[in-house]
């Protein structure tokens, strides 16, 4: 319901282009709530994150209220509402890695990329986040870039790896 229409100048965030979203939605002629998560995954793959105006487009199509879509997105850690970098760096902060020097590795990443945990570089190349034990403690300290594991890290090795992307 409208209380006060939003004028173009008041729309603060830049709007994401809806073409990709429409292409994805075109595959679902009669979408139901069961399709929501697959749709969100494809949107996230296509845009790198879930832009708000794209979600507003989805809510009209799948007839699921925006609040509920937001609830789903915040429930699953795989989804992000902020633009993400092309590559995701996950640094293990589990006990084994911590003991074997993860704090130094983290310092190095911040030094090289100028971002803290949870942030994305300005050029949207990297998003950097801490994770709990990756289950490869024998390789500690460990980090992942996208799907690839890098073990027995040193600060030098870390810098090299980051530069290789």
């Amino acid at each position: 319901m409208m209380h006060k229409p939003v004028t173009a100048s008041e729309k603060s965030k830049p709007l994401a282009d809806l073409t990709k979203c429409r292409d994805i939605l075109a595959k679902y002629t009669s979408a139901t709530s069961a399709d929501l998560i697959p749709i969100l995954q494809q949107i996230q793959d296509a845009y790198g994150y879930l832009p708000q105006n794209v979600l507003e487009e989805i809510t009209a199509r799948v007839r699921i209220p925006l609040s509920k879509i937001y609830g789903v997105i915040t429930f699953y850690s795989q989804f992000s509402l902020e633009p993400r970098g092309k590559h995701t760096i996950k640094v293990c902060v589990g006990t084994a890695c911590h003991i074997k020097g993860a704090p130094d590795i983290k310092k190095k990443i911040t030094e090289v990329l100028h971002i803290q945990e949870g942030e994305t570089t300005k050029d949207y190349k990297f998003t950097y986040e801490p994770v709990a034990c990756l289950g490869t403690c024998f390789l500690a300290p460990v980090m992942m870039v996208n799907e690839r594991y890098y073990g027995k890290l040193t600060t030098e090795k870390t810098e090299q790896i980051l530069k290789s992307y």
Partner: protein
Amino acid sequence: MVSLLIDGKKVEAEPSQTILQAAQKLGIHIPTLCHDPRLAPSGACRMCVVEVEGARPLVASCATPVSEGMKVSTRSESVTRARKLNLELIWSDHPNDCLTCDKTGECQLQNFMYEYEVKTSRFVEQNPPPRPDDSNPGIYRDMNKCILCGKCVRICDEVQDQHIWAFSNRGMQTSIATAFEKPLKDAGCVFCGHCVSVCPVGALMDKPAAKKGRPWETKKVRTVCCYCGVGCSLLLHVKGGEILKVTADVYSPPNYGSLCVKGRYGYEFYKSPDRLTSPLIRDRIDQPFREASWDEAINLVARKFMEIKREYGSDAFGCLSSSRGTNEENFLAQKFARAVMGTNNMDNCARVCHAPSVTGLRASLGSGAATNSLADIEGAEVLIVSGSNTTEAHPVAALKIKKAVRQNGARLIVIDPREIELVQYATVWLRLKPGTNVALINGLLHVILKEGLENEEFIRQRTENIDMLQQVVAQYTPERTEEITGVPQKDIVRAARIYAGTKKGMIVYGLGMTEHKAGSHGVMSLANLALITGNVGRPNTGINPLRGQNNVQGSCDMGALPDVYTCYQKVDDPVANKKFSEAWGCPLPEKPGLKEPQMYREALAGKLKAMYIIGYDPASTQANINHVRSAMKKLDFLVVQELFMTETAKLAHVILPAGCFFEKDGTFTNAERRVRRLNQAIPLPKGTKHDWEIICLIASAMGYSMQYRHPSEIMDEIAKLTPEFAGIDFKRLEGDGLVWPVWDKNHPGTPILHQDTFTRGKGRLNDLLYTPSEELPDSDYPLYLTTGRRLYHYNNGSMSLRNPEIYSISSEEFMEIHPDEAERLGIETGDTVRVRSRRGSLEVKANVTAKSRPGCVFLSFHFPETPTNVLTGPGEDLLALTPEYKVCAVKVEKI
């Protein structure tokens, strides 16, 4: 029925009922935190657990159905242990803020901690701090106090159907959030306050009441909402002469706990510093007002009225009363006009909204009232909603429509040029050109008759004039109807088949039907639809006008009309005339009087010299107000009774300050004919008087004694003179009131009219040709202008704009215009435009939206800065003279 034992007591229950419901039957108390009778059970809080013999784990009684031979214990040791543990867990994550929390005293968590003697929690050393958020209008939030019962989420989903809240995040971080944590205003919230009303703790509360008092300090006064015709039952929470908040009783009709933003948060106007608190008088309207004593003002009014009557005759006087005044006040106003002034020049503001309903329904059925109750909407299989933006104008009635569609599978046919919210719920949307109602309905009738879908037996036994109707509608083939109305043929056929195919078809309509040149005709057409399909006289059927103001029904029932006394007894019927003359001890005029628009014409012609206007602001709400204002300026004497300095009051010679509906006793009659009491909750402001008292004072000063000690005595007089009200008195109206006709003191009231026979005998099928609107767009004024209401405000805004919470949500008008037109005119949302008609012009900001039909613009008339009625205009209903607000021609340009 199954029978079971609860705590050793035997009880019978329906198999669909829950253990909780069965226990309630026995008066056994089971604590609940997430249960509400209006919501589907969720089993979230597990506070209501009970032990069922033979079942291992404890079960949630609110979500477990009863079964034969069940043995339930609601108080066993394991039950108590589980509840205590539950409370301890909740408390471990809850601020320890009871000492300063506004909810203290009616907080369910606190009450249960008391009941189960849980003093603290072993799971926490330090409770979290409160986290107050008062950034939203009306609604105060503290998410640290949320116990995640989910009731706010569910009621917004299931009752309001607005879906604003959801659970967000997971684990310990779980909370209740709007999409993207947006402020409620931007999240689509309509501020109905349902979520606040169900929150068991202090997580959601009414902001205006914050820090003003605890629940046990307030007196709870039952009354009726003063805004729209739904007539919601309200509970006012009053402390020291101040209303702290408004709630509603879950068990009281017609709203069963629901309210809209106006009912819930529209109550603060009464304490506005703008209230008039002294009579104001002046000799000429170019002079400033001066304050006068009540004696001086009353004597002045009495003397002037007598002079005018003596010099120019009784018919030089006209009286207008208000559809927001009580029944008693409207009764006295017409008694004053007739018995004291000796004229039938009496009208009320129903003239500008539902007078065509009275005319049209009387011609068709014999009674101008809604045939069925609002509750019937929920059980209808097919609903036609025509010319009613129900979600904004009658929000609580709209909840029933939504429920019928979403939960009960009803099919909805929306007839409206605008893409109103209900279109989302519609099976068929007939987007007609404004003003073509009669043609469209004739098209529907055509299809029904041509395809043989009519109810022949009903037509034969209970109606007349089918032959003529058949001849007339034969011309309205789907092709021709599409040509006139712009509605695709296939939709016309589809809608006709859907409506004719049910025995539970209900028609609900609003001002989009009546405010046309052919308004009364439109109403008769709808009645034709109901009659030829036999959809009338039974539950979940009928034809039901949604009355605009809360007492439109009542003000007309009370005879505040030029041609009738109470309940439509005709002034020119010798029997009725004699009855009233005898009762009032004076001869009464037989000639029907002037309708409101005729009064302005007569005033301009110099024949009407004085008017007495009670609680009505035609200088801003009538059509073509420049004309109305000139007429008022010509009067020798204008008396206005008001709360605020309205546009009409500004033209008065005498202003008499009156009390508002929180400040008085009396009765209102809602859209379903339910007569219900309002009860004085707060004292009259110093310097003001009740409307009924003022009328009595003037009459008495004129030598006609009018003496009542209390409005109940006025009702007794009404009951004596009105067969339909014979069984009504204030005592009997306590509680939920009575639905008239109430023929005697033992009669229970009549929720459904015309069950065996119509009030007029046979139902009349009126054969009607389509009459185009008075003023259609042309090359000079190429766009249609339609006017109407917005959710947040009411009519001239004199009350609704003076509620700070509501004002902070909506404080200015935006003209709706379709993107095609906007593009052509180079208009973007937020631009200021000039709107011009043949009668006037104004400036307003634009809102570019596809909600508007191409070729049409829409404006409300709530904001004094946007005096929409300078534009509206020349058309009026052929029979009732109601202005054609829904159609006039304008041009729009960007400035």
